[in-house]
């Protein structure tokens, strides 16, 4: 369903168990049960190579990058820039098209604030193409994570532009027939998520990009839930900007990335300003470095970038197509199993795929918090709440849901334990079909 080729073989149970051994935390017991970690949609666990990379850096190479003249500083700079090349290549980008940020949230805000600064006249004539004002429209979707919604709301407030959205249907999928009414020649920017963090649905990127191109709008892709789980080539997807977070793809917290098409980054004014992003500074004004440094003010996230590159090497070692094939199987098992439990409604469950290994559901008459408490009691870690997508939950008529999300290290046994746990919870609370 994920579009992986037929020749891709999903890993065997024995292979998965070998991978699991690379993740120290997966051996933990929780409440007297082996941990079943089904919350990778929130944050992933880390393999030893990632932990070692960060430790190795601090024990052997720690120094300020792009600043010192000494040997360590030079070596640290090389590793830092190599890490950029590794991560950029992983998503099909050129090195200087990948900007380090703290996380996806900061990456999305970077774009929004660069547009905002251009709208205030910063960046000169080159940045005119990013200027927004009254009459211009920004388009998002109703299924966005708050991180890909609120920065655009704020950008609209600051510039006088109007925010519009592509609605979702009762089945949770984007109403593509409505997209034509929403995306018009007034649309200047279209921001949407590649994969919904709630529904696990993979959105039709090609179709949406085509519509944005037809009206000359910029495209911003929230790739937070796709880059960790699917083979992603941002150049092939033909988006202008994309954001993702390291901690969801086996990397450490505190590091994320913004991809930006080279010529756009080159024309864009900065967001954060200060040290390391300038050429000449006087008391009155400053001139800025070319991208990516123009967007990397201050001391950088060196150990995190290096560890993220180690995470990417780990993912490449397995192969994203195989990870996707494995999660496709787990996801199908999750969906089929949940459908059999009385009182369970899977959000977006009736929408045609494709999707990743994630499912959120409502259990009739039982609050998600209570479901989560029962599963936690059995060592099963899942997420409850609105998953930072209040408008989507509101649209589907609920305030909170329970989400299980998989990754390469999850087994079919873990999915089955989760399903049994949900069935037992339904039973305890006397849920009727």
């Amino acid at each position, binding site marked *: 369903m994920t579009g992986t080729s037929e020749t891709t073989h999903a890993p065997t149970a024995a292979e998965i168990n070998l991978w699991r051994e690379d993740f120290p935390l997966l051996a933990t017991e929780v409440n007297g049960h082996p941990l079943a970690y089904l919350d990778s949609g929130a944050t992933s666990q880390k393999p030893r190579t990632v932990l070692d990379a960060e430790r190795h850096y601090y024990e052997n190479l720690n120094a300020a990058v792009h600043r010192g003249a000494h040997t360590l500083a030079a070596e640290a700079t090389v590793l830092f820039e190599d890490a950029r090349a590794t991560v950029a290549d992983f998503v099909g980008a050129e090195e200087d098209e990948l900007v380090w940020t703290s996380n996806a949230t900061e990456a999305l805000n970077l774009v929004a604030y660069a547009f905002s600064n251009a709208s205030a006249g910063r960046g000169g004539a080159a940045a005119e193409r990013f200027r927004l004002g009254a009459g211009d429209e920004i388009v998002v979707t109703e299924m966005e994570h708050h991180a890909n919604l609120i920065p655009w709301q704020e950008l609209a407030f600051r510039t006088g532009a109007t925010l519009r959205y592509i609605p979702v249907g009762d089945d949770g999928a984007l109403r593509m027939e409505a997209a034509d009414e929403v995306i018009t020649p007034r649309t200047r920017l279209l921001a949407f998520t590649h994969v919904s963090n709630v529904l696990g649905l993979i959105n039709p990127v090609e179709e949406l990009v085509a519509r944005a191109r037809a009206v000359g709008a910029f495209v911003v892709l929230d790739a937070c839930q796709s880059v960790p789980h699917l083979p992603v080539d941002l150049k092939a997807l033909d988006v202008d900007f994309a954001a993702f977070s390291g901690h969801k793809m086996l990397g450490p917290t505190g590091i994320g990335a913004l991809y930006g098409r080279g010529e756009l980054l080159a024309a864009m004014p900065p967001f954060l300003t200060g040290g390391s992003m300038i050429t000449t500074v006087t008391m009155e004004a400053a001139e800025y470095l070319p991208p990516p440094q123009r967007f990397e003010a201050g001391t950088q996230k060196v150990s995190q970038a290096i560890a993220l590159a180690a995470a990417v090497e780990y993912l490449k070692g397995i192969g994203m197509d195989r990870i996707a094939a494995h999660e496709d199987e787990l996801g199908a098992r999750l969906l089929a199993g949940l459908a059999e439990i009385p009182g369970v409604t899977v959000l977006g469950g009736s929408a045609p795929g494709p999707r990743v290994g994630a499912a959120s559901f409502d259990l009739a008459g039982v*609050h998600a*918090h209570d479901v989560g408490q029962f599963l936690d009691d*059995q060592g099963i870690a899942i997420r409850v709440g609105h998953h930072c997508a209040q408008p989507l939950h509101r649209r589907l008529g609920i*305030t909170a849901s329970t989400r299980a999300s998989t990754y390469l290290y999850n087994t079919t046994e873990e999915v089955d334990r989760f399903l049994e746990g949900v069935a037992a919870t339904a039973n305890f609370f006397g849920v009727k079909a």
Partner: protein
Amino acid sequence: MSSSELQNLYQQVILDYSKNPYGVGLLGRAAGQSHQLNPTCGDEITLEVHLSGEGADRVVERIRWEGHGCAISQASASLLTELAEGLTVEDLRTRIDAFRTAMQSRGKIAPDEELLGDAVALGGVSRYVARVKCAMLGWVAAEHALVEAETR
């Protein structure tokens, strides 16, 4: 299947009250009202305190509320509503403080049955740090509603 701690958390009283909550439905024209929200899960409550009498003799006639949330929050608001009826404002304040102290004790302080009545069934919640907010939601709303009643 589930552990004894879990059984202790979800006692029968709590399950009963969560299915048949007590005091639901706003009446309007209350002496004080408060809306409380738990932003991490979106649970919310709107709660009214209806008072009679004057000064130190001011008595809680009834509490009414509306909201949605987990079994713990619904049962807790119900138990508070039952407890509060007929108490003086000062007395209710004392009991809210006693409940908060027990809830924030991480399982170290058992709720006092003399002060809290059936609400002691919520004692198990205090060992689950993430759930204390659920249990407190209605009580915090009552506390704010009493402040509003006083300053109006």
